[in-house]
């Protein structure tokens, strides 16, 4: 409405100037019309609301790393023949989700308490997920580094806990809730995916009680020394590693949500698109 009003007022002022100065108006006719910045701003606002955004994001691309997994998921969705707004992710209840958000661990002083590479606390700030969106699935992905020396046929168990209450040294013990576990062979590569939906659901319900996730890689009583075997599942950056190298290796949290903006398709529509 405001942009229409602006267009009307703009045209009205044009008419006024037309009657005042005919000569200058003839000159204007030859020049290409430049839209009013206010009208353009209104149009941009309408466009952004169509995309579900309140304002145009102001970002510094040089500081942000686009996870490779997000690029792959985008390529997978755009490469699909069947038209669908749902996110296809095997093993997760993400079929009714139409949005994926990725989160990285936020560094803090607590990180210094974890000296070894097989046990680490990961903190993800999920407060940016709009309250209007419904959480459908949540996934923690951890990258794995191939171990080529020594015993390579070793199994590791990756356990992920939701920290319900942090401990206070000498006063009280922390409370953890095991939410998922996976067994991995250390000679393998790729990523390990863990379902962390209960934890993210709790953080969204109680944002002040988000203490993060505790990830523990259990090597089943193997040597306690910090060797390459214990760094197979990447939880924290090594001192020898550059920031750029770590950016594509770091743990990621994916939140799959539904913004409720899509109409459910009828069987007739689905059959038509399949045909």
């Amino acid at each position, binding site marked *: 409405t405001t942009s229409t009003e602006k267009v009307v007022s703009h045209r009205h002022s044009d008419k006024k100037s037309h009657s005042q100065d005919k000569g200058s108006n003839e000159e204007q006719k030859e020049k290409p019309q430049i839209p009013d910045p206010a009208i353009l701003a209104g149009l*941009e606002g309408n466009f952004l609301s169509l*995309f*579900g*955004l*309140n*304002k*145009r*994001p*102001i*970002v*510094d*691309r040089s*500081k*942000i790393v*686009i*996870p490779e997994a*997000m*690029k792959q*998921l*985008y390529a997978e*969705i*755009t490469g699909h023949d069947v*038209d*669908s*707004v*749902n*996110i296809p992710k095997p093993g997760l209840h993400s079929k009714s989700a*139409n*949005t*994926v*958000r*990725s*989160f990285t661990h936020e560094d803090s002083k607590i990180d210094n308490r974890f000296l070894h590479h097989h046990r680490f606390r990961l903190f993800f700030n999920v407060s*940016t997920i709009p309250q209007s969106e419904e959480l459908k699935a949540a996934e923690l992905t951890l990258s794995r580094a191939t171990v080529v020396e020594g015993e390579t046929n070793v199994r590791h168990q990756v356990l992920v806990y939701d920290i319900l209450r942090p401990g206070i040294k000498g006063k009280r013990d922390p409370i953890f809730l095991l939410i998922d576990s996976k067994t991995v062979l250390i000679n393998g590569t790729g990523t390990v995916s863990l379902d962390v939906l209960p934890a993210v659901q709790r953080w969204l319900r109680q944002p002040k009680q988000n203490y993060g996730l505790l990830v523990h890689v259990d090597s089943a009583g193997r040597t306690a020394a910090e060797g390459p075997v214990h760094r197979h599942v990447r939880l924290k950056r090594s001192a020898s590693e550059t920031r750029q190298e770590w950016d594509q290796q770091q743990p990621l949290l994916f939140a799959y949500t539904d*913004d409720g*903006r*899509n*109409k459910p398709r009828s069987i007739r529509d689905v059959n*038509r*698109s399949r045909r």
Partner: protein
Amino acid sequence: ASLRRGHRRKNFHEICQRRALYVDFADVGWNDWIVAPPGYDAYYCHGECTFPMPDHLNSTNHAVVQTLVNSLNPSLAPKACCIPTQLASISMLYLDEYNKVVLKNYQDMTVVGCGCR
């Protein structure tokens, strides 16, 4: 023969069909926060719905009747409208206002097919 060819070509352009409409995100200065795709392939439908209607225009029975009436007497009914009959969703990979990477699917954002309705 050349006159007939020219006449045919003109008719072809006037028939209801899908036409290109592309918004390059770099042109509107949105390429800083939209990672992919580089632009928006929206398309639009334009052209006339004239009798007889070809099969590919996916016309409804009502549109055929309306166009037939129009061809007899234009004052009785206007021609059927050339509108999108099939739409597809698009995916966008972008950075939100909190600098978080978001992948979102938007329903009915691009025209796949046009028809007379």
